[in-house]
C-alpha cells in the first residue's frame, strides 16, 4: 500500500505530539507536581499514532493504565489531559481519575483502566453496541502482552469472533509485564499466535514504525467496517523508561535496551516522511515548534489550574445523588 504524503505527515505529527506530551509530563513530574504514579508511553508512540490515524473521529478506542498516548493521539484536549494528571478541577475527569483513568469520552475514548486486561470485555460491549445500533463505528482496543495472560483475553476474543464484531485488538507487546519478561509468561513469543486460536486474523508488526502499524490497522478497520469481524495486530515495541514512576528498569539487559533505543519511533517516521518527500526538515521543525508550544501551554494550564474543592469528592457517584 502506498501511504499518502498527507497521511505520513499526520503519522509524524501524532507520533511527535505524544512524545512531546509525555516529555512534558516527565518534566512536570520532575518538579514533583504530579501526585501518585505514572506509566509513561515514551517509546510506544508509533502504536497510538498508527492506530488512531487509521480511525475515524466516530470510532472508539479502549485504553489502559499506560493511556496518555492513546488519549492524546485520539484527539483529546491536551490542557484537560495534562490537568487531569495533576489532579486539577479542570482535568478531563475533574481530578477524579488521574494518570490511570485519563479519559476523554467525547473524542471516542471509552476509558482508561487501572486493572490490566479489564478493557477487553468493555471493548466487546462497545463493538456489540456499534453493531446493534447499525452504525459503521469500529472499536480499537489497546492492551499489553501482560494482559493477554488474563482470562478476559480468551473470553473477549472468543465473544468478538462468534459475533463478528467490528473490533481491532491492538497488542502493545513491550516485552515486559512490569518487570517480568515475556520469555517467562508466554510459551510463544508472539501474542498473535493466540489470536489465530480464536479464528481472529492476526499479524505482527513493528510497533515502532507508525507506517506499519497504520497499514495493518487500515486493513483491520476495513474488515471490521465491512462486517468481516475482529482482527488482532501485535505491535512489537519497547518502553523508553521503566514501568512506572520510580522504576529505573535495571532488569532489562543493556544490549536489548541499546537495540530498542536505536529504534526511536519519532526518528523512524520522520525519516520515512523525509525519504518519501512528504516532509522537509524545515517543515518537520515547524511542526515540532507548534506542538511544543501547545504542549507547553497545556503544562502551564495544568499547573495554574485550581485543585478541586475537597467536598467535590462526593460528586458523581450516581447521576443524581441518593
Amino acid at each position, binding site marked *: 500500500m502506498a501511504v499518502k504524503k498527507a497521511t505520513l505527515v499526520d503519522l509524524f505529527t501524532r507520533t511527535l505530539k505524544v512524545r512531546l506530551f509525555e516529555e512534558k509530563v516527565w518534566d512536570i513530574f520532575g518538579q514533583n507536581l504530579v501526585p501518585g504514579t505514572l506509566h509513561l508511553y515514551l517509546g510506544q508512540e508509533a502504536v497510538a499514532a498508527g492506530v488512531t490515524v487509521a480511525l475515524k473521529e466516530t470510532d*472508539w478506542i*479502549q485504553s489502559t493504565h499506560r493511556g496518555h498516548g492513546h488519549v492524546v493521539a485520539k484527539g483529546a484536549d491536551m490542557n484537560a489531559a495534562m490537568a487531569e494528571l495533576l489532579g486539577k478541577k479542570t*482535568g*478531563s*475527569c*475533574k*481530578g*477524579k*481519575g488521574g494518570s490511570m*483513568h485519563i*479519559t*476523554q*469520552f*467525547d473524542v471516542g475514548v*471509552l*476509558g482508561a*483502566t*487501572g*486493572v490490566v486486561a*479489564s478493557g*477487553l*470485555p*468493555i*471493548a*466487546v*460491549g*462497545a*463493538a*456489540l*453496541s*456499534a453493531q*446493534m*445500533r447499525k452504525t459503521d463505528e469500529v472499536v480499537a482496543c489497546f492492551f499489553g502482552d501482560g494482559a493477554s495472560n488474563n*482470562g*478476559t483475553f480468551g*473470553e*473477549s476474543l*472468543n*465473544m468478538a469472533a*462468534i459475533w463478528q464484531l467490528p473490533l481491532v485488538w491492538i497488542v502493545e507487546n513491550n516485552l515486559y509485564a512490569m518487570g517480568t519478561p515475556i520469555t517467562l509468561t508466554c510459551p510463544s513469543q508472539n501474542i498473535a499466535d493466540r489470536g489465530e486460536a480464536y479464528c481472529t486474523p492476526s499479524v505482527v508488526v513493528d510497533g515502532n514504525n507508525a507506517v506499519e502499524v497504520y497499514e495493518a490497522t487500515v486493513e483491520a478497520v476495513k474488515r471490521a467496517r465491512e462486517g468481516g469481524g475482529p482482527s488482532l495486530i501485535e505491535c512489537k515495541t519497547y518502553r523508553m523508561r521503566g514501568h512506572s514512576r520510580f522504576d529505573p528498569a535495571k532488569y532489562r539487559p543493556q544490549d536489548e535496551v541499546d537495540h530498542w533505543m536505536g529504534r526511536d519511533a519519532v526518528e523512524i517516521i520522520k525519516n520515512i516522511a523525509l525519504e518519501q518527500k512528504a516532509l522537509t526538515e524545515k517543515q518537520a521543525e515547524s511542526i515540532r515548534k507548534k506542538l511544543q508550544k501547545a504542549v507547553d501551554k497545556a503544562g502551564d494550564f495544568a499547573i495554574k489550574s485550581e485543585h478541586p474543592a475537597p467536598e467535590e469528592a462526593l*460528586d*458523581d*457517584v*450516581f*447521576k443524581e445523588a*441518593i
Partner: protein
Amino acid sequence: MTEITYRDALKQGLREEMLRDDNVFIMGEDVGLNWGGAFKVTKGLAEEFGEDRVRDTPISENAIAGAAVGAAITGMRPVAEIMFGDLISLAMDQVCNQAAKMRYMFGGQTSVPLVLRSVFGGGKNIASHHSQSLEAWFMHTPGLKIAVPAFAYDAKGLIKTAIRDPDPVMFFEHKLVYDRKEEVPEEEYLIPFGEAKVRREGADVTVWGTFFMVHKALEVAEELAKDGISVEVIDPRTLVPLDKKTLIDSVKKTGRLVLVTEETKTGATTAEIAAIVQEEAFDWLDAPVMRVNAPDTPVPFSPTLEQYFIPDNKRIADAIREIV
C-alpha cells in the same frame, strides 16, 4: 387484574421495556431460544424479539458483565443475566471496578445504564456454589444500585425502573419466589427506587427483612398476632438507595427491631441496618436490635443441614419473643 407469578411479572416488565425502547436487550448464558433462562424468566422473549436482542452468550461471566458495560456507555440499555448470584464472583472486576466506578473516576463523563439480573438464596438443595445470598458485597461498593424484590408486583415495577435508570443496577431475585402468584396489573407502572413497603402494620416490634424472609416474617407475624404480639413487617425493596425513613419511623413507633435475611451473619446487610438504627434512633430503642441470619458457614447441601442453615419461622419468632 390477574394473578401471575413473580417469574411472569418479571418477564412482563422486560417485555414492556423491550417494546418501548429498541436499545434494551438481554444477554446471558442460556437466556435465549433453547432454554429461556435457567429459571425461565426470559422464556419466549427470543421468539418475540429475535436472537440479537435476547442473546445467548458463552460461559464467560466477566465478559458478559464487561460487554454490558461497554454497550451501556455507548448508548444501549443492556440487561445482563448471570445465571446464579454466586457466579458474579467471576465478574467482580467488571461490576465493582468498572460499572460502579466509571461515572465517578471519569468525572461524570460516562453513564453506565446497565441492569445485571441474578438470583440468590437457598432452599433448593444445590449447595455452596448455587445458594448464597451475597447482596452485602454490592451494598459495600459505592456506585451500584440494588433492587431486591420479594413480590411479583414489585418485580415488574422495579425491573422497569432499573432498565430506565442512568446508573448500574444489580437486580437480585430469589429462587423460592419465582412461582409465587400475586395480582399484577397488565398496564404499565413503575416503582421508584428507595421506597420501602410496610407489608404489615404493627405496634410492638419492627421486622425488616429481604427476599423469602419477608414471606416468612409475614407468616410469623400472623402467628404471633394470636398471642397478642403486634408485628410490623418492612420490605425495603431496594437496598441502594435505602429507604431509611420508613425504617426509622417504624422503629420510633415500635421501639424494637428484628432484622432477618438469609445471608451469613458477619458483615451482612443486617449489620449495616443495625448500625444505621443505633446511629439515628438510639433513644427510641427499648431493646437490643436482633439479627436473624444464617450461620457463618458455606451453604450446606443435605436437606437437614440446609434447613438448619436457613433462618426458619421458629428462629424469627424466638428473636421477636426475646425482646418483646
